[in-house]
């Protein structure tokens, strides 16, 4: 008893010393892994790092997922941690531009990440430098009721015509083709992304999200015309503007709807609704314009070194550790997502296998982050709001495109 007490004092003293004289041994990480699975997964990463590097003590400040988005602006400029969680693509641009993130090209070079993380590299690059370590990403695509498709004799659609025909068959049998809840808008952004990627291709899509193309362009009109075709054919769930994405899961669970254009994170709640692997399936969003290389959405989550880091040396050691293949394998196994390191292996799961093979073999066009991560923040909110309006009032197309073009002219 006495002994334990003594060792505790020693530990406490060591802690105080570490806090004052031996600062070199502590790194501070701020993150938003507030859900149970991500939280446990990241704690395991910290534990693994501390076990390998006994001289470094990791202090992890956990924030609520939503609150983090506002908090990061404050703590990065006021009292920067060494490492913080964030997202790839244009989402990190404000922090890179304001000089709050530090480039870590040396970590990329030392760890050989230029070749190991080729897929996610473009999303981490700004001004020709690498600004963080991607640690996970997840696919988007069409999750569907395999059993309903089989019952009605519908084959997995590969082309636009097959897709439209599948919707017709579903509607004729009283099943809504696509469930969606647009109350929080971003789900509509996902549908737009796919329609535009398939109609006009990756390069055009990225040019549009970067604000280089007018929204009144004929190619955008072509995308919207395809969207209107779906709306006119009653593809989407009624009253979707009143539902969140979680509420829109229910029609899929009880068989009132058959497809969901969604990210991989929808698999877990769908399984909870009783859809096992024989009922739930996944397919790549079908081709629209023949010959346009298939591009996919795969939002990437990242960790970054702060420009104001107090202990950049040890922080870089941590970043290198987080990029390692075996670490990412375990981390993503716990998350149920895909590792960004090509040397990692994917946990054996129907949907992760399908996604991994799709992203590595069937996405020659490229990988987009997501509408609201590729686009400037304010443009994204106006854009998604107008997509929602379009889905309910497609006759307002002209007004909507003009409004978007006006916003683009102002914001870029």
């Amino acid at each position, binding site marked *: 008893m006495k002994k334990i007490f003594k060792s505790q004092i020693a530990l406490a003293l060591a802690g105080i010393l570490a806090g004052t004289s031996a600062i070199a041994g502590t790194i501070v990480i701020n993150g938003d892994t507030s859900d149970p699975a991500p939280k446990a997964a990241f704690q395991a990463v910290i534990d693994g790092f501390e076990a390998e590097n006994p001289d470094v003590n990791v202090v992890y400040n956990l924030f609520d997922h939503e609150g983090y*988005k*506002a908090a990061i*602006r404050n703590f*990065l*400029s006021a009292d920067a941690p060494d490492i913080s969680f964030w997202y790839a693509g244009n989402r990190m641009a*404000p*922090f890179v*531009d*304001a000089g*709050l993130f530090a480039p870590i090209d040396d970590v990329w070079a030392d760890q050989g990440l230029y070749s190991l993380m080729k897929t996610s590299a473009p999303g981490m690059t700004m001004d020709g430098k690498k600004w963080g370590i991607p640690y996970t990403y997840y696919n988007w695509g069409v999750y569907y009721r395999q059993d309903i498709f089989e019952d009605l004799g519908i084959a997995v659609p590969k082309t636009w015509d097959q897709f439209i025909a599948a919707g017709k068959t579903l509607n004729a049998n009283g099943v809504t083709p696509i469930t969606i809840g647009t*109350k*929080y*808008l971003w789900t509509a952004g996902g549908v737009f992304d796919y329609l535009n990627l398939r109609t006009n291709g990756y390069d055009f899509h990225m040019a549009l999200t970067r604000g280089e193309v007018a929204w009144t362009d004929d190619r955008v009109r072509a995308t919207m015309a395809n969207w209107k075709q779906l709306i006119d054919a009653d593809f989407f769930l*009624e*009253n*979707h*503007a*009143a539902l969140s994405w979680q509420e829109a899961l229910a029609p899929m669970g009880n068989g009132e709807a058959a497809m969901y254009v969604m990210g991989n994170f929808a698999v877990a709640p769908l399984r909870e609704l009783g859809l096992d692997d024989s009922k739930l399936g996944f397919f790549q969003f079908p081709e629209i314009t023949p010959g346009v290389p298939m591009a996919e959405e795969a939002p990437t989550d990242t960790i970054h070194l702060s420009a104001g880091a107090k202990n950049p040396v040890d922080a870089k050691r941590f970043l290198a550790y987080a990029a390692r293949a075996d670490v990412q394998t375990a981390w993503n196994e716990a998350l149920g997502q895909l590792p960004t390191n090509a040397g990692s292996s994917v946990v054996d799961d129907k949907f992760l296998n399908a996604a991994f093979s799709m992203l590595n073999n069937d996405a020659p066009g490229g990988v987009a982050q997501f509408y*609201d991560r590729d686009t400037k*923040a*304010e443009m*994204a*909110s106006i854009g998604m*709001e*107008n997509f*929602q*309006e379009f889905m*309910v009032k497609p006759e307002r197309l002209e007004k909507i495109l003009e*409004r978007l073009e006006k916003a683009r002219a*102002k914001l870029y």
Partner: protein
Amino acid sequence: MYSFWKNNQLKLSPWIFLAPGIFMFSLYVIFPIFQSIGLSFYQWDGLGEKTYIGVENYIELLDDEYFFISLKNNVIWLVLYILAIPAGLFAALFLNQTVRGIRIYKSLFFFPFVISQVVVGLVFSWFYDPSNGLLNVVLEGFGFNPVAILAEEDYATYGIIAAGLWPQTAYCMILYLTGLNSVDPEQIEAGRIDNARGWKMLWYVILPQLKPATFIAVVVTVIGALRSFDLISIMTAGGPWGSSRVLAYYMYEKAFSEYGFRMGYSAAIAVVLLAIMMVYIGLILYRLYRDEKGY
């Protein structure tokens, strides 16, 4: 020194007593107001350098259709929220009787004001829910088509206001109930002798005595309407496509939401909202001043 204090004691002591209040009020209310006004002339994302852009934020406001939608909704809120006052008055008159267990009924009527606005918002969202909500079950029972109130641009704001009226009516009711306690029974008796009853009694005898309660009810209701935020955030998040936003919510979205961080623009919206409130605050101050003077 001592004589100076003695000579001016009467003049100085009120200021000494007021000083803590004035200090706090200046620090937390007056100073931020001027800070916001100053900020509205800048372009600032909350991170980098502030850039002075003159009145450009205001010019942009004039060309922003979402701003005008929010402004229009603010007016609708102001007008319809006032309904809480007569509704509260009638609830109070109805409950102002001596029946067994009346205290329980009174507390039940007051209940919606006690629970959080967030809970009120959730309850009403479920009530309006297009597939399982009570409202649509009833509508369908009468043979109407279901309506997704919160997903229709024409109804969403009214749906939220209806939810807001529920607790606000309860609040006004409590104000009137306390007011009714102090109504002079002799005046009522005198009115009876002069053959006043029903509406006439209410209008000419009761209501004038409830004037202080009415004044407070108007004040809290107008303030409640102008700062409506929680319900909108919970029930529609400003949607569908921004049609149920009010200025306070739009300001929050532009400044602090996931896609916002236009501090200057947001401050400009805040200044407009302040200007609207000032009209009304001015009226109240004028009235208070007049009453103090005793005209």
